[in-house]
């Protein structure tokens, strides 16, 4: 009989990290996925771990701790996942944006994070190909980059040394419960795996897994397209993005950019990052289109248009490919890292939106602490699944 201490559902970045941390702690773990490792969002994303795109507070704290954990993992894991800390640069188009950026930096700096304002001249010293008419920006030293699917492979390889069993191409069809309502087994299309604990790391598909135990997990897929450049000269040396990116991520920031219809309608904000291979990834875009990950012509044009505004040198550089992924979005932009009161033994680690890569190590650690009944690194009351129950009661 297949029996494990914990079954982790979803072999994306979160599931791989959770499975690694649990295995290392000594639990017997099965990692189940309907496809291969990193076959969903974690191979259709960009590849950065940032603090500069987080809101002050627990969001930034977890992001920062996660980067420190990645630095350790890059040394510990035997598999190279192309980690490097290059820093990141926000660029502001207007003085008004610069002022909002300044307030944001002051708040983050007061909390002890190393972010600093740069003026229009320093901006060009750091990235000489940028447009000459920008107002200034923010430089964040700690921000880091890696290869997202190689991180998944690295976690799995390492976890296998501690006994992890990988069930790839196993689609979860049902979850059996005991008479007392606690979890008993995960039924896939090929086998049944017995367990007392299940962690739902299915990301954008977490809601479908939730339905199998009768709970409603309010995660929605939020699409994002990426354009890949040919291998070319170093047009940027780090992640560079417009401060307006924050505005596309968080709906509650009251500022609107002077942009074209296609950029506005598709919620496009300039971002570019170098890859280890020498290509550049360009984005970014956010929209709700269900589970559709086709490449949209208009969005490709919008991303290119916005990129040319900030980095005119791209004009003669080729776009060789585009792809789209879907982020697990939740309304309050904080992941769910939680037990589920009504289903004993069922846990959720999902809903990281665009921060899955960024927050995977800290999520894996805290989920292991939760399952072990140890105190978590951070107070994760705000990450509890029950927060949604409360809000729906108020409504």
């Amino acid at each position: 009989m297949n029996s494990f201490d914990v079954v982790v559902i979803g072999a994306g970045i979160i599931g791989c990290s959770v499975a690694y941390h649990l295995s290392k702690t000594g639990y017997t773990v099965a990692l189940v996925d309907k496809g291969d490792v990193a076959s969903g969002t974690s191979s259709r994303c960009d590849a950065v771990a940032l603090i500069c795109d987080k809101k002050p507070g627990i969001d930034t704290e977890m992001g920062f701790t996660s980067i420190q954990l990645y630095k350790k993992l890059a040394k510990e894991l035997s598999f190279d996942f192309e980690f490097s800390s290059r820093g990141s640069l926000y660029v502001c188009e207007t003085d008004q944006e610069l002022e909002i950026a300044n307030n944001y930096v002051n708040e983050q700096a007061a909390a002890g994070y190393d972010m600093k304002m740069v003026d229009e001249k320093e901006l060009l010293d750091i990235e000489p190909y940028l447009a000459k008419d920008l107002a200034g920006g923010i430089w964040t030293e700690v921000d880091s980059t890696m290869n997202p699917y190689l991180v998944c492979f690295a976690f799995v390889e390492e976890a296998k040394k501690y006994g992890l069993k990988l069930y790839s191409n196993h689609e979860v069809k049902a979850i059996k419960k005991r008479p007392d309502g606690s979890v008993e087994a995960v039924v896939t299309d090929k086998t049944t795996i017995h367990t007392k604990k299940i962690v739902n790391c299915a990301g954008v598909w977490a809601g479908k897994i939730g339905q199998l135990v009768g709970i409603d997990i309010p995660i929605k897929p939020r699409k994002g397209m990426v354009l890949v450049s040919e291998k070319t000269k170093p047009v940027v040396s780090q992640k560079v993005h417009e401060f307006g990116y924050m505005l596309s991520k968080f709906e509650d920031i009251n500022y609107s950019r002077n942009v074209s219809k296609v950029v506005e309608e598709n919620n496009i904000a300039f971002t570019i990052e170098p890859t280890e291979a020498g290509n550049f990834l360009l984005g970014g875009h956010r929209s709700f289109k269900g589970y559709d990950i086709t490449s949209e012509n208009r969005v490709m044009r919008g991303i290119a248009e916005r990129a040319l505004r900030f980095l005119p040198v791209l004009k003669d550089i080729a776009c060789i490919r585009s792809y789209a992924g879907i982020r697990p979005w939740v309304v309050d932009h904080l992941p769910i890292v939680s037990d589920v009161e009504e289903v004993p033994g069922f846990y959720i680690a999902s809903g990281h939106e665009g921060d899955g890569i960024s927050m995977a190590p800290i999520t894996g650690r805290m989920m292991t602490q939760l399952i072990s009944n140890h105190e978590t690194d951070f107070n994760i009351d705000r990450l509890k699944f029950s927060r949604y129950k409360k809000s729906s009661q108020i409504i």
Partner: protein
Amino acid sequence: MVVKSDDNKIICRCEEVSLGTIKDIVHHFHCSSREVKLRTRAGMGYCGGRICRTIIEKVVQDINNEKVSNESQLSYRPPIRPVTFGQLGGSENDDES
């Protein structure tokens, strides 16, 4: 070590991935063509895998003893041919809307 001459053949010309590298990865990880792509970059270069894709799939299927299927694991993505960002997003683009 004696290297078989075939193994030195370049399968993915854009990323310069040899047959030997692809075979090693499949033997070691027992993986799909998609995973071969992610682990070696074969098929991720300038041509978008349009030249080497079918060969990679054949090699993977031969080693894994799978039936050759018509359905590809390796996807084609737009644009069909490389296009400059200037053409894609510049003012000269013939936006239909």
